């Protein structure tokens, strides 16, 4: 008797689940009626500049920090390669 193979059934379920869920989410989205408006305080347009400054500087710092982090790892890698090269040279010296 041929053993019951689950794979095609599971594949079918996966495909239909993905279809259902991607179709369901926009369908669910249609049901909501609320469109909230932000209640912003206007007033003097210059008062909130510190926040603007903070956003842009933090963004820049974050990316520069990441680039620095990557170059650090690169440097460590290079020194590790050097050490490995030395060890292999020593080995060859002994043999």
């Amino acid at each position, binding site marked *: 008797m041929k053993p019951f193979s689950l794979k095609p059934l599971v594949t079918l379920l996966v495909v239909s689940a993905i279809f259902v869920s991607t179709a369901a989410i926009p369908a669910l*989205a249609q049901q909501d009626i609320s469109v909230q408006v932000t209640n912003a305080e206007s007033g003097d347009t210059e008062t*909130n*500049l510190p926040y*603007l400054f*903070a956003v*842009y500087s933090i963004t820049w710092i974050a990316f520069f920090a990441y680039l620095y982090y990557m170059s650090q790892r690169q440097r460590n890698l290079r020194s590790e*390669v050097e050490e490995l090269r030395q060890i292999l040279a020593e080995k060859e010296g002994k043999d």
Partner: protein
Amino acid sequence: MSIGMVLKNGLFVVCATMMLVILYLIFMWVPTDNIQGTVQRIMYFHVSVAWVAFLAFFIVLVGSVGYLWKGTSKWDHLAYSAAEIGVLLTTLLLITGILWAKPIWGVWWTWEPRLTTSLMLWLIYVAYLMLRAYSPPGNQGARYAAVLGIIGFIDVPIVYYSVKLWRTVHPQVIVGPAASGSLDSSMRILLFLTVATFTVLFVYLLIDRVSLRKSEDEVEWVRGIAEQASHLPLSLR
């Protein structure tokens, strides 16, 4: 210089140029929002970082599926690198969001759907990085992370549609399939430009990180061989 290096340096130059251009446009050209004032200019960075974070996590999904399917490590390198940059981007998203919320809503944070699901998104991919760190050595870690990388992506559409699914104070979606908010045309153009700039930056960082990871992998492999050859565990660094 190899053709790869030329392309990479070229990409960097393009990215830097675009960044300078959009900075000029954001601060000198685009009109001020009359409801929120100058602080509204945060939007360009906040929304762009969001979109590129979604892209990053999509690439994690692609890399994870590729790794589980094909098994070659290049897919894993792609997934991990994209996850790392994605966490960086999502951290920036949360921080810029918080800094924008305080002047506009009066609070640093509120437990409304968009913010909550975005925080969860951050946690999911932080967990991804933790999982890689805490896994046993070998392929297991990569496989576990790939599983998380696939199911974790389910939060991205949830975050995107959260403003439609639930009552929310967060502004409505402006671009994409759920778009309903309105935006001045010059602001819209600048927003697309900023998204493009950040995407270029992301691609540059991704290429860098993937090649770094690949090199680290290779050195690890060489070290394994060297250890075998000398019959001693090597204590480097």
